[in-house]
């Protein structure tokens, strides 16, 4: 793409995003989230020392889509590989890119303990409440009543349980310094997601601790919706079960410190208690916690 020097560039492909055509279905939010991560890495000027860790799922080919160093690891083990990378080479910027099937099911132990240990990498999660790559089976974050290949009558919480609230769970761990949930769809929400990703990577650059952004997105094909309808479903239904907001933003806090002085210890008490009070049935709230997402 040639752009003459006389013109001001308003929007173009970020350098950290490879020019490959992705295999993602029409309207899939993975493409948008890839671009946002690449934009943030470009903005921070860290492309030469960034290593991504690709997961298993639709985003398994992320290593072809980012113009960054990448490793691809077994299902769910991205946080474990990222831990090794970051500990061996603290000068690197390390991030994982995982879906809900990868992070919230087979990789649950890895991601929770990475947060518990306060590993200094950034986890990016694309949550679309379904196993997309394998054809649309129920995932741990499938909404109650949602029809999938394996829940043809809709997910019944009485039998199969409730969606797993990943961001709230990770935010409650003392090693986490920045945990937010945002969504894709409209322009404003995408800009907020970009801002959250920027904050998460900055937390890593500052060596503060574990950072994570859970991004709600669509799966138009497996949901049986048009891309537009699928985005509307995210905005209308998904946020009822997955409240948007910043659940943790502050230095890693040993629980004993937070409790000893009523939670205000190092300026994070409010966020920690807000995260702990989050239940599965909490109604949708934009901007839970503090600030916007």
């Amino acid at each position, binding site marked *: 793409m040639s752009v003459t020097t006389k013109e001001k560039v*308003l*929007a173009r492909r970020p350098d950290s995003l490879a020019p490959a055509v992705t295999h993602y279905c029409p309207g899939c939010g993975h493409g948008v989230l890839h671009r946002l991560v690449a934009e943030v890495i470009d903005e921070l000027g860290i492309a030469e020392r960034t290593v991504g860790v690709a997961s298993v799922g639709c985003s398994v080919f992320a290593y072809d889509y980012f113009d960054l160093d990448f490793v691809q690891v077994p299902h769910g083990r991205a946080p474990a590989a990222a831990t090794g990378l970051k500990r061996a080479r603290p000068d690197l910027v390390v991030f994982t890119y995982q879906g809900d099937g990868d992070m919230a099911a087979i990789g649950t132990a890895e991601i929770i303990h990475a947060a518990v240990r306060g590993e200094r990498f950034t986890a990016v999660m694309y949550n679309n409440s379904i196993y997309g790559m394998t054809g649309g089976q129920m995932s741990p974050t499938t909404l109650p009543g949602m029809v999938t290949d394996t829940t043809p009558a809709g997910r019944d919480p009485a039998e199969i349980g409730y969606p797993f609230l990943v961001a709230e769970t990770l935010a409650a761990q003392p090693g986490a310094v920045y945990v937010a949930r945002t969504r894709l769809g409209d322009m404003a929400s995408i800009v907020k997601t970009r801002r959250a990703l920027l904050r998460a990577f900055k937390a890593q650059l500052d060596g503060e601790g574990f950072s994570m952004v859970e991004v709600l997105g669509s799966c138009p094909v497996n949901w049986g919706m048009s891309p537009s309808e699928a985005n509307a479903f995210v905005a209308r239904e998904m946020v009822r079960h997955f409240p948007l907001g910043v659940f943790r933003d502050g230095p890693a806090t040993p629980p004993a410190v937070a409790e000893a002085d009523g939670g205000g210890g190092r300026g994070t008490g409010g966020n920690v208690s807000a995260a702990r009070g989050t239940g599965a049935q909490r109604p949708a709230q934009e901007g839970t916690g503090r600030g916007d997402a």
Partner: protein
Amino acid sequence: MAEIHIQLDQDRCKGCELCVEACPRDVLAMASHINALGYQPVEVVAAERCTGCRACYVVCPDVVFTLTRAA
């Protein structure tokens, strides 16, 4: 208003139509021809109405758009 140049990489487009919906000025529409990927791609039908708000670029999952403004 400075002229906005919309450069389309039409052969990347998968025809999801999210940009057409996002554009507040009806600059975009879906073409009738089929592109290299087998989709009907987006096309510019009213470039003169574009304000360079970037909405199309922001919502596009496939980075079809490059927007420039004459300096």
